């Protein structure tokens, strides 16, 4: 390695470190803020706390509302994932395996959902959810969320299913296996990678969703964590340490989940994020 090389590499590392600190500093300030008294936050927002006071984190964790918010988010996210995977894979299987009159058209119809943002239809959606009587239920978030993930899910599933070997189906068919059974017994188990990718994508979207729950959930009993967090922030406007502890405790699971499922998340969020 020449000297020019070395200098360039050092310069590169320095630049990367500067950007990394721009990225990490706000998060670090948040995590540390949860350990400080408000007086200390005021004078020392960025540095380490003089005394590691855990009572603010403790206060959040012993608040049943906090766990209820997380529980609601978890149920809604899992519900959306399961429903999207089953309903989406079933439809994609038909589009991939069976050609019938109008199947092309129906497929294009479903893909229309990729064209426009969720927010365009939010008001009629609110009216519809209200008229069906689903306001303030988990379903009010699960059903529209699933419906809006279907376009992308079906597109990705169909592409994947179409690549599965045709001989497999023909062999199973000769052995008397019908279409529906084949879907359950062979297509789904063979499609684990794409199911995981789409599932992760839907989960993260649902876990972070704010606009839809904000519109269709009014009761604190069914609040998801982003709503609970905003509610909390409104109640403790001046107590930043409590709010920061709350934020930290909610983003921590997301970060752990990200580190664990990194492969699927990066694939699902970048490669698959046709909707941006």
């Amino acid at each position, binding site marked *: 390695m020449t000297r020019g090389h070395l200098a360039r590499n050092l310069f590169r590392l320095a630049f990367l470190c500067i950007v990394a600190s721009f990225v990490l500093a706000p998060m670090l300030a948040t995590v540390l803020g949860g350990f400080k008294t408000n007086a200390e936050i005021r004078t020392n927002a960025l540095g380490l706390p003089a005394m590691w006071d855990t009572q603010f984190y403790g206060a959040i964790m012993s608040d049943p509302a906090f766990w209820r918010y997380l529980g609601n988010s978890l149920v809604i996210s899992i519900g959306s994932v399961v429903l999207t995977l089953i309903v989406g894979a079933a439809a994609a299987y038909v589009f991939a395996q069976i050609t019938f009159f109008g199947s092309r058209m129906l497929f294009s119809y479903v893909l229309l959902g990729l*064209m426009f943002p969720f927010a365009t239809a939010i008001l009629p959606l609110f009216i519809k959810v*209200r008229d069906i009587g689903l306001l303030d239920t988990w379903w009010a978030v699960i059903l529209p969320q699933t*419906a809006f993930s279907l376009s992308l899910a079906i597109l990705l599933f169909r592409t994947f299913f179409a690549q599965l070997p045709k001989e497999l189906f023909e062999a199973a068919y000769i052995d008397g296996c019908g279409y529906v059974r084949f879907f359950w017994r062979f297509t789904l188990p063979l499609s684990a990678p794409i199911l995981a990718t789409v599932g992760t994508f839907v989960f993260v979207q649902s876990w*972070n969703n704010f*606009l839809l729950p904000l519109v269709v959930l009014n009761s604190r009993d069914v609040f998801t964590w982003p709503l609970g967090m905003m509610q909390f922030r409104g109640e403790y406007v001046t107590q930043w340490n409590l709010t920061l502890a709350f*934020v930290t405790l909610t983003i921590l699971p997301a970060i752990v989940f*990200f580190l664990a499922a990194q492969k699927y998340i990066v694939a699902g969020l970048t490669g698959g994020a046709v909707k941006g």
Partner: protein
Amino acid sequence: MTTAAARRMPVSVRMRRAVTNGRVTAVLILLPPALILFTLFVMLPLGESAWYSFFNWNGYGAPSNYVGLENYERILNHSVFHIAVGNTVKIVAISLLIQMPLALLLALLIYKKTPTNAVFRLIFFLPYILAEVAAGLIWSFVFDGNYGVTASIAAGLGLENVFILSDPDWAFAAIMTVIVWKYFGFHMMIYIAALQSVPQDQIEAARIEGARRLQVIRYVQIPSIKPAIVVSAFFAIIGALQVFDVIIPLTNGGPSNQTHTIVTYLYTFGLTRLNIGFGSAVGVILFVGAVTVALFYQRIFMKRAQG
């Protein structure tokens, strides 16, 4: 056996076979749930948006007060809507001029698969996986003039308290900072994936012919990841049309309505005041904007990038 051979059989036989081998059952069982959900919660509300937008309606009872295009007229003449559209354009500009070049530069610095690069990649992608609301809240702490990081810095420099988020001139700049912080990692990941699939021998060939590092980047790497750049710019534009979550904890559209985007405008003036007709009209405008962008973009760039 399902295609060519089957096609030679008479229609009646084909129909009977289709029923017995479960083909019809499969279509009838597996397809409808998706179609019903999609129609009920995506396409129908979209159509209803268009319908409601012609009424002055608070959402109760059936819409009856037909006002024609009045909602659209009011929106297009509303100064706050102009601000919202202007802000959206600003977000697009910042994305294209600052965020994407930054992401590309970082991608070029760390696309090679080494352990150090993996760590940086992870760090830069981290903001993207945070919920927008959480990101907004974190930064509203950073910008808080009394308690936040800005306050500490101002105090350290001996300055007076600065309240960036309640300053009409600076609030939106602060929001754009948060947006760059949140999304540059996403664009970077797209570029990294593309850079990793550029054939190594192309780069080496250029090197052997005497190309310098910058020339390799300029004439080999960037041209070959052009499709990825086109796609990421598309995400930036469509994303700008949808910005909402970040704004709510930061400024909620204020001070004096200076930081609205199209969706916060829709929410504030349509939903919170139960002007369903008015809000629906905003939704329709947003829809037209998004579809126009998508169609034009596809026609102009996507085809060329593929060809």
